[in-house]
């Protein structure tokens, strides 16, 4: 908190807690002004407080990890250490062994997740819109949605073998249901007034999907994509652990079996990073589609 106090040092002391201080004083000084047109905070710290605090806590954690291994508090065989992980990663990228694993897992993800979107979204729209389509397909969707998809792994392996396709299938099965179910909900909750407007202007079903249903379903659709993304990554790792010849999940499993903690960590970090980057991409897409929405909160 010391740096926070320093950031507010120019302002007169106040009994309010530091987090409240700025807002209270600004409100008192300019009572007539709307909050949204207040000048932006000036100091570098105030502008980036959130990100800076996060970075600092992360760095402290990494330093603690490294030192506790260096000082012999914990066995690197169990925990590895940041420097070891970096060194191992450099080696693995240098000899190219990890690139093959990344390619394999990437392929499984792109094809499986892509198919889940291409099939899940249109099917969700149809099931949400036409009650007959829903009546026919709902028993299957409900049953499969309730089944842990991992339980299907042995079957998928029997059907598709140990190669890429079994993992593509398991990624697809993991991702398609959250996408489908959320799209259905999105379509069902479309504002009835908008549907009426579209009808009144002579919209056919196809135009209704494009101009009303899809735009109104965007929030839930993206929720489905985000949930599906998580399931897809789980699918890759578990699928490859269960039976594969390459891939990041395979790498984690085999390295783990040989107590190569550094390699396990590299695999985990790459998958986690992929998850973060992809979630960020989805958020960008969301922002692009939601820019008409009034901002709420601060």
């Amino acid at each position, binding site marked *: 908190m010391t740096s926070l106090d320093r950031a507010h040092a120019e302002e007169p002391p106040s009994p309010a807690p530091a987090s409240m201080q700025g807002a209270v004083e600004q409100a008192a000084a300019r009572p007539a002004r709307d909050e949204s047109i207040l000048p932006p905070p000036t100091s570098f710290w105030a502008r980036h407080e959130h990100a800076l605090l996060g970075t600092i806590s992360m760095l402290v954690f990494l330093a603690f990890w490294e030192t506790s291994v260096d000082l012999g508090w914990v066995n690197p065989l169990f925990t590895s250490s940041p420097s070891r992980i970096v060194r191992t990663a450099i080696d693995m990228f240098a000899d190219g062994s990890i690139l093959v694993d990344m390619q394999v897992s990437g392929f499984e993800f792109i094809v499986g997740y892509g198919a889940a979107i291409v099939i899940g979204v249109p099917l969700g729209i149809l099931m949400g819109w036409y009650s007959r389509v829903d009546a026919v397909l709902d028993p299957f969707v409900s049953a499969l949605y309730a089944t842990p998809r991992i339980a299907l792994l042995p079957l998928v392996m029997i059907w598709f073998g140990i190669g890429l396709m079994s993992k593509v299938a398991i990624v697809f099965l993991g991702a398609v249901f959250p996408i489908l179910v959320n799209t259905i909900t999105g379509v069902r909750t479309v504002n009835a*007034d*908008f549907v*009426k407007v579209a*009808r*009144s*202007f002579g919209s056919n079903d196809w135009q209704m999907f494009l101009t*009303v249903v899809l*735009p109104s379903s965007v929030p839930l659709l993206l929720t489905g994509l985000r949930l599906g993304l998580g399931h897809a990554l789980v699918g890759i790792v578990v699928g490859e652990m269960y039976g594969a010849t390459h891939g990041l999940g395979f790498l984690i499993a085999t390295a783990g079996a040989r107590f190569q903690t550094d390699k396990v960590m590299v695999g985990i970090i790459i998958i986690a990073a992929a998850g973060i980057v992809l979630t960020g991409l989805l958020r960008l897409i969301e922002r692009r589609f939601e820019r*008409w*929405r009034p901002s709420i909160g601060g």
Partner: protein
Amino acid sequence: MGAVRRAKLDVRGVSLDLYNERTGKSLPVLSDLDLAVFEGELVSIVGPSGCGKSTFLNAVDGLIRVTAGEILVDGRAVNAPGPDRAMVFQHDSLFPWRTVRDNVMYGLDLQGKLAKAERVERALALVELVGLTGFADHYPHELSGGMRQRVNIARALVMEPQLLLLDEPFAALDAQTREFMQVELLKILARAKTTALFVTHQINEAVFLSDRVVVFSARPAGIKEVIAVDLPPERSLSVKLQPAFLQVEQRIWRLIEQEAQKTGMLTVA
């Protein structure tokens, strides 16, 4: 009123039952309704709350099928929504993800007859007509309630309908804005030269806007009375204080009161 004026809208013996899927019952909403609206006229429909005014308007728009009788617009029977009619909906029916311009353009987009440039041009002309020049690129949430309803009106007028249907378009506005919008609507309709059917629950509004006011009876609604409003076509808000205006208002109010008493509901919500 000339004897040979052509009926823009001709409603003949229309009855309409609404089927409720949940209860499995049919509710008679309209019963044996006859009404003619002539070219250039603005006719309002008032009646006790829940009597089926909006349902009737939806039937004229083609959103609901009638059970018996027929609705003719320019002599053609109405079965579905068509480009000869356009509806101005109640509050908040603008698409929040479309800008003002794109909302106004919506019907033209669906039609797909005109090139994009021409659609934009026509939409912008309507945005100007309703007095929103400079707001074309704004989103609905950035506008006031009154401005949003101007967009709503423009969205219908851009289709150049033969018959404009307005379903309580000012219901969600505050009292002041509402009065101003009534004056604006008269100006806009005079410029657009459109025949209009206007549903409202505010008698004062109906009298101010209309050439004739149709009073619906309680459900199942028939026409209780049609009252011609004998006021100059160019009206300002001060008309509302004239004795002739107040007389018509009083008369309609009494008719509705009678109907409301039938249903056990004295006041008009």
